[in-house]
């Protein structure tokens, strides 16, 4: 019985934390005190459920306890306005629990919050992960992560950041920022923590957020595109490093290590996104992953399609990373001279510290028979490499 209650509680935390918190924040606004109240409700459940049994409507039960705590807390505050609010909350009927996690995600993606704290805040608020756990995924000290989260929550409270956003320009911008923040965290994780054994776990958490995003905003093709992109990349994750921990280039990855289930899910997701006929950055990037993955699986890469997708990406969302990847595709499809021109068109200042630029330049110069230039670019690429796996890989190319 006791074990049952424990298991039930663990599963409620996992499945309902974000929903419960969203319901509290909608009424209360202050993320931090809502989290405290919810933590207390869980503590009461730990104490009572094993002996008194698990309540039928366990979500409503937890919400009720948390609300009670918030009301008591505000009563102790004894401020007129807050007392009114407490009375107001008591009148609130205990209805069913709506899923407002998207609003919670959008609150965390508020432009008034530091970009570095947005995804950690999402993990903390929507998935209920502790600062300690989040810190490991971002390679910072737990105390640092804790301080960042507290600062963000204080800003939400002290400036009354709004939970609800009306449809319109502001909401569109916030949805875009949500997708970009998520992808940034996901790709940084891949690059910077290449040597870290924990990396898979953190990526799974970002993927969980992307699933929630796509699930709650199902008519947003870019949310689906982002999920597809992250699924493709996660599918290839097991082949990213070899048995010695060295980084493996896409062209040489062992396709038998790719996760076919994730690839299939990515395909379905991307197909749904295309159904809306509204292209965007993430859908194009996912389509590129798809074309390249199928090229490897079929042993025949359609470079025409790939180059076309890169051109589309350059128009819809021009980025340095996109341009360098485009150059790399030109190189691999037998156009090294065009690859060199593409690389030469990029601003000198912009590429100075951009590692993929130097790695691609080195490969291009090697292909064009310019060994001295290739060596210089290769050295620069190694200097800038952020993980040993990447460095070893680059060294192996020099032969």
């Amino acid at each position, binding site marked *: 019985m006791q074990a049952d209650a424990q298991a039930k509680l663990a599963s409620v935390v996992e499945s309902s934390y974000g929903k419960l918190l969203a319901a509290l924040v909608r009424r209360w606004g202050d993320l931090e005190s809502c989290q405290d109240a919810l933590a207390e409700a869980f503590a009461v459940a730990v104490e009572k459920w094993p002996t008194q049994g698990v309540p039928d409507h366990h979500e409503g039960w937890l919400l009720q306890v948390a609300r009670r705590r918030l009301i008591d807390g505000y009563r102790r505050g004894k401020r007129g306005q807050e007392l009114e609010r407490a009375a107001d909350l008591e009148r609130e009927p205990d209805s069913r629990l709506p899923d407002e996690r998207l609003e919670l995600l959008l609150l965390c993606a508020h432009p008034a919050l530091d970009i570095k704290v947005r995804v950690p805040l999402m993990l903390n608020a929507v998935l209920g992960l502790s600062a300690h756990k989040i810190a490991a995924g971002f390679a910072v000290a737990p105390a640092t992560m804790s301080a960042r989260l507290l600062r963000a929550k204080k800003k939400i409270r002290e*400036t*009354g950041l709004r939970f609800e956003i009306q449809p319109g320009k502001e909401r569109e911008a916030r949805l875009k920022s949500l997708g970009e923040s998520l992808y940034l965290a996901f790709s940084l994780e891949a690059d910077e923590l290449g040597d870290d054994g924990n990396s898979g776990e953190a990526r799974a958490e970002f993927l969980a957020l992307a699933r929630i995003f796509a699930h709650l905003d199902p008519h947003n093709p870019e949310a689906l595109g982002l999920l597809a992109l992250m699924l493709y990349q996660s599918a290839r994750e097991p082949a990213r490093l070899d048995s010695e921990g060295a980084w493996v280039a896409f062209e040489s990855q062992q396709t038998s290590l790719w996760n076919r289930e994730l690839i299939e899910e990515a395909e379905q997701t991307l197909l749904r996104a295309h159904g809306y006929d509204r292209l965007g950055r993430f859908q194009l990037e996912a389509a590129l992953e798809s074309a390249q993955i199928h090229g490897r699986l079929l042993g025949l890469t359609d470079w025409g399609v790939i180059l076309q997708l890169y051109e589309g990406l350059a128009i819809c969302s021009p980025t340095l990373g996109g341009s360098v990847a485009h150059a790399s595709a030109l190189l691999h499809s037998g156009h090294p001279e065009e690859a060199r021109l593409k690389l030469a068109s990029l601003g000198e200042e912009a590429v100075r510290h951009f590692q993929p630029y130097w790695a691609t330049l080195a490969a291009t110069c090697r292909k064009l028979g310019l060994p001295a230039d290739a060596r210089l670019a290769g050295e620069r690429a190694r200097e800038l490499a952020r993980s040993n796996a990447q460095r070893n890989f680059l060294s192996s190319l020099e032969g």
Partner: protein
Amino acid sequence: MQFALLIYEEQDEFESRNDPHKAPEYWAAYQKYSESLTAAGVLRGGNALKGTELATTVRLSGSDTAVVDGPFADTKERLGGLFVVEADSLDDALEWARKSPSVTRGCGSVEVRPILEMNAG
């Protein structure tokens, strides 16, 4: 809650106040802005400030106070004035900040800060 909208302006924008060709448009923009805040019933106070060439900064230096000519920090944009507005949320205050002439004229920025309520508790 109340928010201060701190109006920062680039040098040229600030000086257009005293330029007979530019001043009418400059003041008209602020007049209109201030009227829209009043019409919405959110304006709680504010003032325009004279130039930083008239600023004097005082700070403690050792056991004595030191008085120095000039503003606290010499930056590209300087504080030209401030509005105090009533808003439920930073989001609403940001909406007002976006409409401020220093933003719409593209010659400055607005720093939005919540005001500390001293009579609370």
